């Protein structure tokens, strides 16, 4: 923990009777690319606005580098925001937009001009300084908004779904761009998004938020491989979740009964060790075999019938109906070895227990 960390401690924000942010505690390490991921309406924007000073918490504390900023006026905070709608000043040129913060801080003219030019180059808008925001494309406006915030060299940069309004191709491009810029300037980025892929590709740390609370926080890979709850398992990528009763524990494994199938999950991959639970396996961790005999030893398996096979190029996505009626999704990489299984084929779906996890239902 370095001294410029952003700490949100037990922060609650209510609107009327509605709790938008519920006793939220979060530490965002200095210099990190932090993603706040959650569905629409879960309180992400409200959280950012409290950090920016545009909304005051009902309870709790926000500190930046040990300094309590909970009730500090927004224009006194060393924090800048890239707004969801960009909120560029329509009556000012791109240059004046970007210079706005520096001028308010009383930066001298020459220095302002130099920094603005440098920042416009960084976001590849060097040619567009004299244009009005309305004369730029969505992607260019987005970069002006970024430059306008970043030029002030804040301790923390808040980005509220900055890529939400861009089309898919541009979004991918800007994700890489944003990541490059963050690495280059080393400023803490708090990036709000509802796109799990975006959060995972960009961030060092992802916090999954739901109903005003943090469900899970961690490195993207870590969270993907071992989600803390069924919500995270489904929100971050896709999961097959099979209802199971915990029957016991042996040799470092938790054994469960899933619709009559006895399966084992390594104890270290269990969030719960008793009662009813959900056994989860990612679709790409599942394999298909012709029958029970073809299942490698040590693998867990269930029988099923292929109901659908859709070829997506890099992989084939199968739906397999298990005996208890629900369907399992299986991604088989197109490695060119196996022949595709046709719908109606009886198969065994199998996986390494080390790839499964157990979460509360």
């Amino acid at each position, binding site marked *: 923990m370095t001294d410029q960390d952003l700490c949100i401690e037990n922060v609650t924000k209510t609107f009327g009777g509605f709790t938008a942010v519920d006793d939220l505690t979060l530490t965002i390490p200095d210099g990190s690319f932090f993603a706040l991921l959650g569905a629409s309406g879960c309180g992400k924007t409200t959280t950012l606005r409290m950090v*920016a*000073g*545009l909304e005051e918490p009902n309870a709790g504390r926000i500190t930046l580098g040990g300094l309590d900023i909970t009730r500090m*006026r*927004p*224009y*006194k905070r060393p*924090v*800048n*925001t890239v*707004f969801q*709608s960009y*909120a*560029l*000043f*329509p*009556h000012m040129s791109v240059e004046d937009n970007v210079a*706005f*913060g520096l001028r*308010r*801080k009383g930066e001298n003219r020459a220095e302002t001009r130099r920094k603005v030019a440098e920042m416009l180059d960084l976001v590849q808008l060097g040619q567009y300084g*004299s*244009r*009005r925001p*309305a*004369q730029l494309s969505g992607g260019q406006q987005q970069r002006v908004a970024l430059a*306008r*915030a970043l030029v*002030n060299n804040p301790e923390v940069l808040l980005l509220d779904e900055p890529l939400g309004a861009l089309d898919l191709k541009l979004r991918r491009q800007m994700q890489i761009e944003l990541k490059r810029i963050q690495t280059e300037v080393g400023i803490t980025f708090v990036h709000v998004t509802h796109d799990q892929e975006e959060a995972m590709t960009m961030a060092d740390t992802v916090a999954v938020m739901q109903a005003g609370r943090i469900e899970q926080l961690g490195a993207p890979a870590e969270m993907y491989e071992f989600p803390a709850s069924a919500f995270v398992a489904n929100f971050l990528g896709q999961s097959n979740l099979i209802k199971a009763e915990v029957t016991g524990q042996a040799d470092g494994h938790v054994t469960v009964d899933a619709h009559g199938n006895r399966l084992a999950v390594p104890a270290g991959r269990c969030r719960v060790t008793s009662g009813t639970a959900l056994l989860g396996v990612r679709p790409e961790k599942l394999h298909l075999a012709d029958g029970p005999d073809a299942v490698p030893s040590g693998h867990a398996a269930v029988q099923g019938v292929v109901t659908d096979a859709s070829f997506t190029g890099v992989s084939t996505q199968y739906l397999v109906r298990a005996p208890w009626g629900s369907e399992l999704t299986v991604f088989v990489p197109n490695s060119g070895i196996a022949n595709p299984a046709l719908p109606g084929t009886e198969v065994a779906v199998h996986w390494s227990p080390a790839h499964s996890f157990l979460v509360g239902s």
Partner: protein
Amino acid sequence: MHGFWRWLAEKWVLLLGFVLLAYLFVPIAVVMLLSFNQPASRNTTYVLDLETFQFTWNNWTDMCGAAGICDSLLRSIYVGLSATVIATILGTLISFALVRYRFIGRGSTNTLIFLPMATPEIVMGTSLLTLFIGLQIPMGFLTILIAHVMFCISFVVVTVKARLAGLDPRLQEAAMDLYATPWQAFRLVILPLVLPGIMAAALLAFSLSFDDFIITNFVTGTSDYTTFPMFIWGSNLRGIPPQVNAIATAMFLISFAFVIAGQLRTRRRSARRAATS
């Protein structure tokens, strides 16, 4: 024949537009023409008869020739400017309050502010007169000003509110996020964006005040504070001096110049925009 009907089907909107424009401008054209006419007597100031039309520059060179005409014009301009300044400032403040803040009575204020626009002038005039008499305020400039400010405010509020409502509230937040104090955010971001609306409101207020007759007629009482519309009405009884046509034409040309200037400004701005993109 076939071609004609098709032509008509394609152009009828345009034709209708021309007819409408003519309908709107013919009366003005008549006044313009008459401003160059030397009527035989004051009772024929408004008679446009090409047989008796006698060209003259007199109405223009001797605008203040008729007794009291220019005094009344100056009074109207003075009342108009004063009412405009006061109504624009108050109305703008009211609009900000209505759009930006939630407070008890906001809804009813929103409705009440429309009332002066909806009330027949004759009703407003009589009630103001009753009020001023009741309060024993002497009739004259002050009562006229109060009345004009009152009915102008509604129009200012409606105009400025429309502009403000279209303004993204995030802009102010963005300014404050970029180290602008609330006052700086207002001066550098909000005001420049709302200014066109405020200017439009001010022009509207001035023209409303300048040509108001009914309400002014009530609240002038017996005082000799005769505004321009009151002067015309008064002289109507004795015969209208022909200078009125010249002044009317001049007023029209001045307003027209304002509109053209505004149009040119927007056009030049969009041309510049197009040139840079």
